[in-house]
Every structure is written in C-alpha cells, then in structure tokens.
C-alpha cells in the first residue's frame, strides 16, 4: 500500500479521489456560506443557501427585522433579535432571494475582540515561517553531504 510499486497510479488516484470528493461536494452540497456580497449580487443563484456572517454592525433595528452592514453593504435580516443600532453581532440563517434578505436562525452579540484577531493571525504567520525553516533543516536534500557520508 505504501511501497513504490505503481507509485504514480497511487499518487494520481489519491489526488483524483480528493478532487472527486470536492466535485461531489460542490455539485450537491450547500455546506459553506458564500460571501454576502455574492448573494446580494446574484440572489437567484444563492436562494436557500445557509449563510453565516461572523461579525457585522447593526445599522438599524425594528421589531421583526434589522439591517446590518457587512463588507460595506447593507444586508437585511428578518427575525426577532434584541439588538440596537451600533451593536456588533454574528448571525446565521437562510438566504432568501426575495428581498433579498436573510431568514434569521441564530445570532449572538460580538465580544468586540474581532479586531484583535489580526494579532493572532500575525503570530500565526510568524510561527508558520519558523516551522517551514525548521522543516528545511530536517528535510533539506544535501547531496554533497550524503556523498561525503557514503550514503549513495
């Protein structure tokens, strides 16, 4: 199973299977939310899609709906939620092309820490760079050294 026999076929088979799983998922699934601006630009295409907006500021709020700002665009959400203009919330629901709007399923008030996420991401990239350098140390191909040690 892990031998070098039929190496190319095994590698190509694994790659093909991953791509086939991805294609099947893309063809039949509605798993991951598209960007809200895409839904607003092509409402008919995304009608019925589950959508998650992790963080957005409320522009206006009524008893049965509210409008939030996401990616610089106003986005209507229909459903009851105890929110006021200026609040930062995360919402999820089903996109409805009529309107267009989001039918609210779950929501939660933001903790205000979203801006700090960039710091976490910056730390992550530094860590990733260090790991890649470490990988070069462990896996680098050094033919001259191998020859000197009589490996080949």
């Amino acid at each position, binding site marked *: *199973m892990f031998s*070098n026999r039929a*190496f190319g076929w095994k590698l190509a088979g694994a790659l093909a*299977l991953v791509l086939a*799983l991805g294609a099947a998922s893309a063809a039949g699934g*509605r798993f991951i939310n598209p960007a809200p601006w895409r839904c607003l630009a092509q409402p008919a295409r995304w009608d019925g899609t589950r959508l998650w907006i*992790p963080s957005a500021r409320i522009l206006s709020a009524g008893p049965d709906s509210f409008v939030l700002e996401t990616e610089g665009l106003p986005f209507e959400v229909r459903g009851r939620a105890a929110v006021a203009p200026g609040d930062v919330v*995360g919402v999820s629901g089903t996109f409805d092309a009529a309107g267009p709007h989001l039918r609210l399923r779950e929501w939660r008030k933001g903790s205000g*820490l979203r801006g700090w996420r960039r710091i976490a991401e910056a730390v992550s990239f530094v860590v990733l760079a260090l790991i890649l350098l470490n990988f070069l140390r462990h896996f680098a191909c050094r033919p001259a050294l191998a020859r000197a040690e009589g490996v080949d």
Partner: protein
Amino acid sequence: MADLFTHLVSARLPGAFVRDRRLQALLVLGTFLPDIGAKGLYHVARCGENFIVPTHSVLGLLVLCYGASFLLEERLRAGGFLALLGGALLHLAVDLLKDQNGMGAAWLLHPFSPVGTELGLIPTENVILLLPIDAAILVATWLLERRLRRVQQ
C-alpha cells in the same frame, strides 16, 4: 479555522512523545494540512466554497494524507502517513471547539452526511484569548521534551 498557533500547539504536546523527529515534524505538518488544502483550493485553484469541504472531513483527510505520504521516501511513508493523519484529525478536533452560529466547523462524515458539526465552545472572534494558553502549553511541552530526552540519555 482556529489560528495556526493554536493548531501548532495542539500537535506539539502529543508530538513530545514521538521519538522520531521527522515523524514529529510530520505530525505538525498534518495539523496544517486541512487548511493548506482548503486555502490552496479556494485561493490558488479558485475552487468554489463547497469544493473545499472534503479537506475538513475524515474521509477526505484520509485520502489527502495518503497522497501526501507519497511525497516521502518509502521507508518513512507508512509512519509518515499515520503522523500526517494524526495531525490532521487533531486539526479537526480543535476546529470542532469553535462556535460558528450553528453552521458547523467540520463535515466529519462527508460525503455520507452533509451535516456540519461544532461544539460551540469558542466564538471564532475570541481566538486571541487562546494565545496565552497556547504559549503556556508550548513552554510546558518544551520542558517535557527536555525531561524526556534526559531520561532517554
């Protein structure tokens, strides 16, 4: 995704008990593999949002790690596959802790079930709070590794 630092830490602690430094490195690489696959397909290959679902499912990762193991030399391949898979499954476990408003953070049984799963313990915007905990675990791991190495000597 949780931040890469958290994923790294989640692999470093069990990695301290892996003697072979190459397998230890592959365990760490395995924790990045689901996001490398997902971001690569989405940002580089420009695949759609739904195309990347297998990179966060058990079957998808099994195949992905099998394929990735063929980038290793034959002697290291079987162990490397297990290390990569262990790291990738750790990634899923960490991602499952997230709260994504009920959308699901991983699709464990895809393609057999379309249901996304999440435990909803940490809102994604609060990952910054994990940094000091991660740093503490990393220091503890380093001390543990030093001690284990001394015992081996």
